[in-house]
């Protein structure tokens, strides 16, 4: 683990330094990526101008959901986004090079071409989150206050684990990248809205099958004093760390198995 962190810092640091050499273009890319994600939020804003709520949730409440998942997903995407290239690496055999080096593979691949511009997404998520907290009328207790940062961190870990799990499947099915994206990017979009607007089957799937509901829905509903979805007990709001740990374990096993069945290429 320490080795992975060290490797990640080293490789990511090198990519940051190499992108920083073109300062102006770097500033520009950060700015554009921020704008793009910000427009997402503007769309929601405009929608609320027409309707005064969504599935029984007020504007500030939806903003809380949006801010929580947006920040978590942003962090996961910033740190693990390079896993997007795994399919190509497995197919063309360029993973060989990473496997020759005395450093954990996952850290090397995840940190490869580390792009600080993805930070735009995190910043945007945070902004919406702060905005929501200002607007919300919640009876804050110490537990609820602590629940917030924990939710963001665990959410990021769950998203990251799903990304690793998805990348692992590429060792066997090199063209499954789209499926993975539907769970991560698609999951993020889904979690921006309150569970009450979706079909019960879908909500149940997100709670029990792919446990993305623990990213924001369950803790946020607790903070807002609303009942947990899909028949979950109220205490499930605090289960995110456990769910995150289980996701990590599963993803870790899949990744190991993936490496063992990596077959490189004939040339």
């Amino acid at each position, binding site marked *: 683990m320490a080795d992975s962190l060290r490797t990640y810092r*080293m490789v990511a640091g090198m990519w940051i330094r*190499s992108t920083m050499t073109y300062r102006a273009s770097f500033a520009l890319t950060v700015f554009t990526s921020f704008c793009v994600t910000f427009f997402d939020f503007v769309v929601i804003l405009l929608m609320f101008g027409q309707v005064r709520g969504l599935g029984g949730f007020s504007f500030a409440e939806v903003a809380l959901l949006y801010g929580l998942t947006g920040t978590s997903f942003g962090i996961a995407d910033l740190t693990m986004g390079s896993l997007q290239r795994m399919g190509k690496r497995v197919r063309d055999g360029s993973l060989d090079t990473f*496997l*020759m*080096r*005395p*450093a954990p593979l996952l850290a090397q691949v995840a940190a490869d071409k580390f792009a600080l511009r993805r930070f735009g997404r995190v910043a945007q998520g945070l902004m919406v989150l702060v905005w929501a907290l200002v607007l919300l009328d919640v009876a804050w207790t110490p537990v609820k206050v602590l629940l917030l940062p924990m939710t963001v961190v665990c959410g990021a870990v769950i998203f990251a684990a799903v990304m690793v799990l998805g990348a692992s499947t590429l060792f066997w099915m090199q063209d499954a990248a789209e499926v993975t994206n539907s769970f991560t990017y698609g999951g993020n979009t889904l979690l921006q809205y309150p569970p009450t607007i979706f079909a019960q089957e879908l909500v149940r799937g997100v709670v029990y099958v792919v446990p993305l509901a623990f990213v924001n829905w369950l803790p946020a509903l607790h903070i807002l004093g609303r009942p947990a979805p899909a028949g979950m007990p109220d205490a499930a709001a605090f289960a995110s760390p456990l769910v995150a740990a289980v996701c990590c374990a599963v993803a870790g096993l899949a990744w190991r198995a993936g490496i063992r069945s*990596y077959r*490189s290429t004939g*040339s």
Partner: protein
Amino acid sequence: MPFIELDTVEKIFTVRRKTGLIRREKREVRAVDGISFGVDRGEMVGYIGPNGAGKSTTIKMLTGILTPTGGRLRVAGIDPARERTRLAQRIGVVFGQRTTLWWDLPLKDSYRLMHRMYRIPDARYRENLDRCVDLLDLEELLDVPVRQLSLGQRMRGDIAAALLHDPDVLYLDEPTIGLDVVSKARVREFLRDLNTTHGTTVLLTTHDLTDIEQLCSRVMVIDHGRLMYDGELAGLHAVGESERLLVVDLERELPPITDVPGARFVRSEGPRQWLAFPATASAAPLVAAVAARHPLLDLSVREPDIEAVIAKMYGGTREERRESLM
């Protein structure tokens, strides 16, 4: 105990091929089919064989990139697939076909990252880098992004990268592919020096017999994933009954030369004739005999190449062999 040890190592690839719209056929490719050998510390061994013989697959298993399907494999007492990262500290790998450097970064940034990733002590790193830069003539290339380097330049950069951490073993998979004569000579010189002064164990794969002739005292030949020969290069010619070719230019078109003992007429083209003789025999008496009996203008001797030797050793019709000899 040998430094590199393989005991009936196998690698089987299952490939699926589309035979119909949905139907797929499963097929097994035995890329490495029960190979056993040992390499001692400080040896420099050539590992040769025709295309698809299983050379690269073996090297990938020795690196830990591929997990063997069966058999036992140890490098410096380490099981490569199981302890890949620990082994990486002790080995250097150069794939002629693929760079191990960071494509978008200048050469020297790649080296700097290796410095830290391999935890090379500063003094060691500087010393090794200086030596490689000097011997491989890299000075002017250090600031150039790897993707802008020519094939030969990149290969030299890769060889240096594989040696910065003082590996005990160096695997080279076609390190001279695509290099010009000067670069080839420089690389060979460098490897010989590395082996003699540092005692680095070297396992070398190549299709250029000259690499082997100039560097390796021992050669292993594999074909279809099996070890066919393990011994001295000269012995290979004897075992393979390989032939060299004598190309003679006569003054005019003449009937085939069949009266020279030890030589076999192959073909003619106008005044030029091709004669084959055993690779282990000396060419001098043959040349004298031809010159004594025929009006000779010019002549040259063609060495058999590795492919031809192997083709002759194992299977292949006489016609194929002859074609590969020419």
